C-alpha cells in the first residue's frame, strides 16, 4: 500500500515536472557553479582487506568468471563396419571437464562382433590433462583394457592437440603393468565440401616395443586404420556418416595373425555427436 502511494506520488510529480509546473523542484536543483561533487574520495579506493586482482573488498565475488570449468561429451564414432564376410561395431568416445589449464579427460574405445555382440576389445582411459602450448595438451593417467581377457592396465603419457593445418592429433605412449611398451598415433582432418558436408580422412597407427603373444602383436608397427568418412552435419552437434576403412597389419604382427585377419577393407556407417 505504502509502495503504491509512493509510485503514484512519483507519477504525479513526474507528470507535473514534465508539464512544466514543477518550478519549485527545478529551482532547488539549478545548475551548480561550484566544482562538482560526485567524485569519490581517494580514501575510498583501497579497502582494508583487498582482493589482489580487483583491489575491492576481498569477500566480494569476482567481476568475471574466467576460471570456470566447462565440460563436453563427444562420441567421435559409433559405427558399423562391414567386410565381405564379417561385420563389426566400433565405438570411440571421450569427455572432458575442467578449465583452460587443468582438465580431467575420459576416453573409451572398443569393437566387437556385430552379429554376436561379443566384444573383441574395450578400453577406458582416465587422464589428467594439462595445457602445455598454444595448441597442445599433455596427458598422463591410466588405461584399462576390459577386453581382451585377461584384462590389463597401462600407464598413459599423451600429447593431444591441433597440428598445423588443423590436423587433430593424439599421440599416446602406453606402459602395461607387465612392462610392455606400446604407442598409438591418431590423426584426423576435416575437409569441408560445403558448410555441412565434411570429408574426414583418419589415420591410426599402433606400434609395440616388443612382442606380446597374448595380444598377437609383434615388435614394431603392428596395425593401422586408414579411413575416409563423409559426414553430414544435421546440426553442429550431430553428424551421421558413411565411409571406407582399411585395417592393416605389419611385420611380425602380420606373421603372427591369420591370413584373413591381416588386412581388412570395410564399408562403414555411423554417427558422431557431442554435447
Amino acid at each position, binding site marked *: 500500500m505504502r509502495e503504491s502511494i509512493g509510485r503514484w506520488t512519483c507519477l504525479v510529480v513526474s507528470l507535473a515536472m514534465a508539464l512544466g509546473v514543477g518550478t519549485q523542484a*527545478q529551482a532547488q536543483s539549478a545548475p551548480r557553479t561550484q566544482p562538482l561533487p560526485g567524485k569519490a574520495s581517494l580514501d575510498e579506493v583501497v579497502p582494508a582487506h583487498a582482493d589482489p586482482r*580487483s583491489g575491492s573488498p576481498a569477500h566480494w565475488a569476482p567481476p568475471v568468471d574466467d576460471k570456470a570449468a566447462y565440460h563436453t561429451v563427444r562420441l567421435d564414432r559409433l559405427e558399423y563396419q562391414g567386410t565381405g564376410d564379417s561385420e563389426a561395431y566400433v565405438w570411440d568416445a571421450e569427455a572432458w571437464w575442467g578449465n583452460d589449464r587443468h582438465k580431467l579427460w575420459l576416453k573409451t574405445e572398443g569393437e566387437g562382433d556385430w552379429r554376436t555382440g561379443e566384444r573383441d576389445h574395450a578400453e577406458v582411459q582416465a587422464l589428467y590433462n594439462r595445457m602445455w602450448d598454444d595448441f597442445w595438451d599433455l596427458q598422463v593417467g591410466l588405461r584399462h583394457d576390459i577386453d581382451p581377457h585377461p584384462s590389463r592396465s597401462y600407464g598413459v603419457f599423451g600429447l593431444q592437440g591441433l597440428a598445423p593445418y588443423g590436423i587433430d592429433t593424439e599421440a599416446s605412449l602406453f606402459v602395461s603393468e607387465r612392462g610392455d611398451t606400446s604407442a598409438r598415433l591418431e590423426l584426423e582432418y576435416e575437409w569441408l565440401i560445403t558448410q555441412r558436408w565434411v570429408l574426414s580422412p583418419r589415420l591410426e597407427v599402433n606400434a609395440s616395443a616388443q612382442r606380446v603373444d597374448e595380444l598377437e602383436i609383434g615388435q614394431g608397427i603392428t596395425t593401422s586404420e586408414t579411413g575416409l568418412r563423409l559426414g553430414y552435419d544435421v546440426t553442429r552437434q550431430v553428424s551421421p556418416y558413411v565411409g571406407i576403412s582399411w585395417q592393416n597389419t605389419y611385420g611380425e604382427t602380420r606373421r603372427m595373425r591369420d591370413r584373413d585377419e591381416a588386412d581388412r577393407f570395410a564399408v562403414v556407417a555411423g554417427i558422431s555427436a557431442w554435447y
Partner: protein
Amino acid sequence: MDKAFQQRRALLKALAALGAFGAVSAMMPAAARGATASVAPGHLGRVQGGRPRDVVFDAHIRKDTFRLGDRSGSAYSVNHAIPSPLIELWEGHTARLRVHNHLDQPTSLHWHGLLLPFQMDGVPGVAFEGVAPNTTFEAHFPVRQTGTYWYHSHSGMQEQKGLIGPLVVHPAGPDPYAADRDFVIVLNDWTFEDPHRIMAKLKVQSDYYNLDERTVGDFFDDVATKGWSTTLEERRMWGEMRMTPRDIADVTAMTYDYLLNGHAPASPWEGLFAPGETVRLRFINASAMTYFNIRIPGLAMTVIEADGQPVSPVETDEFQIAVAETFDVLITPDARPYTLMCESMDRTGFAVGTLTPRLGARAPVPALRPPPRRTMADMNMAGMDMGDMDMGGMDMNGAAMSGHDMAGKSMSGKSMSGKNVPSESHASSGHAMAGHGSMAHGAHDGRDKHSGESGHEGHAMAAGHGSESPGDIRVPATMDNRLDEPGTGLEGLDHRVLRYSELRRPVPIKDQRVPSRTIELHLTGNMTRYMWSFDGVAYSDSTPIDLVYGERVRLVLVNNTMMEHPIHLHGMFMALENDQGAHLPLKHTISVRPAARVSLLITADEPGRWAFHCHLLYHMDMGMFRVVRVLDKESAHA
C-alpha cells in the same frame, strides 16, 4: 527561440511522452504497462527532453518473456520493457537511479559512459557488491556531462538476455543541435539460447557459429582466380597458423536475431517524421558480440557525437559501430520512407528500421553484401606477394616482412623486449616476441604521429606462436594504428565511410599536458581455445593497473589477435590520438583493429576502482578484463 515557444514545445513533447516509453512511463504502475506495447506507432524510442530537472528512476528488474513472432523465451526486463526503457537525465541536475532486484540471483546496472563516483558505477566485484535478490541499490550522483549513453547489467550474462537500455543526458543549456525529432536507435543481438551454453559451445568448438568456413569449392575458386602457387602459399600460411580468414564474428546469426529498438526485421521498427524536419538518430550498439555497418540508402548522415561526446560534424554515407559505442547523426529526409540498414559486420544478418513520413510505408531493404575476409593487413603482412589479396589500404610505415617465412616455422626467437616501452605493473610485459627469419623492420614512425615524447621504438612482432603463454597467440605484426581505415568489410566502397581519423573534438581537450608515462597493453587471445586476455594474463591472474590521481598517461593498446576488440574504460574518457592535434576525440570505447596499435591519453582525475575490459561479452567473461585504480601516490603499486 522565445521562451513561450519552448514551453509549448515542452508541453507537446510531454504529452507525447504519456504514451511513449520514457522516464515517465517507467513510473507508471505495472498494470498500466505491457512492455512497450503502449507506445504510439512511430514513436518508440523518441527522446522527450523537456524542462531540465532532477530525475528519479525506478528500475524494476524481473525475469520476463521475450517474444519474436511466434518464438518466445525467457529474458530480463526493466519495468517489463526489453530493451530496457529510455532514461533521460539533465546536466547540472542529479540522478537518482534505483535498481530493484526481483530476480533470484544478483544483478546490477552499469551506466555506460557516465562520469560518477565509482561506487555508483554498477560493476559487481569492482565498484560495489552487486544488488542481491529482493534488495534495492540506489545510484545517486550529480550529472556532469551530456550526450547519448546506455546502461546494462554487468552481472553474468544478463546483458545478453535483454538487460540493456538507452540513456540520454540533455544539456543544461540549449541543445546546439535541437533537432525536430530525436530517436534512440538501440541495436542488439538477441538469442533464445542460454548464453552460458553459447560460452560452453565456444569453449568446445570455437568456430561453432561460423557457417562461412572455407570449403573445397573456395579452394578451386581461388585457384581459378589467383593461380595455384598463390592459393597454395596462402593456404599454407593460414594452415600453419591454424587460423582462418573467415573468422569475422565469434557468434553469428546462426543463433542471433539482430534487433533495432527491440524489433526484428520481420516487423521492423518505424520512426515517424514530418517532411522537412531534421531528425537526430542516436545509435547505440548494445550488442553482446556484434558490430554493425549502418547506412540509410539515399540519405547522407552528419555525425555529431561519438560515445556521447561532441565531434565536429562529419558527413558520411556509412559507418561501422563497435559493440558499446554510440554515434549520433543528423539527417534531413525527404518526404518518403527510408530504410535504416544495420548489417552485422560478418553479414550473416541485419537489423532494420524504417523512417517514414506515414505509418506503414516501406523503403526497399538492400540485400546483404558478401561477407568480408580477414586479409594480410589484419596480420600486417602486406609484404606478402599475395597477388590480388586485399590489402585494405595499409600504410606499412617502412616495415615489411618478406613473405614466406612468416608462420611459425623458423623460430629464431629474436627477443624484442628490449625495445618495448616498459609497461607498468604487468607481469608479462616485455614478452619475448618471436622474430621469424627474414623479417625486416625499420623503426616505425608510428610515434611521430603521436605527440612525440617518450617515443616507443617501433617494433614489428612476428606472426606465429612464439608467445609465452598458451592463451596468447601472437599473430599480427603490429605497427599501424589503422585509424584511417574504414571498418572491416567496408574497404573500397563507392560511398563515404566514417573513419576514426575523422573524429575531431570541436573544442580543444582540457588537459593538454604531455603524458608522464606510457602504459602498453597487448590484446591477446587464442581463438582455438577461446581464451582472451591482456598481455596473455586473464583477469584472475592479474593485478590492478594503477594510475596516480591527477596524472596524465598514454595508454597504448596493441592488438595481437586477428579480430577487433572494443576496449572500454569505465569512469573516464580516453582521448584517441588520431592526428587531430589539440582536438582529439574523447571515447569511452575504442575498437582496436587486428594488428593495430592505437594510442590513447587519459587524465586520471576520477578516484576509484574502474573496470577496463573488452566489451565483447564472451571475451570479457574469459578474462579480457582489468581493474584500473586511480588513487593517491602512496597507495599505488610501485
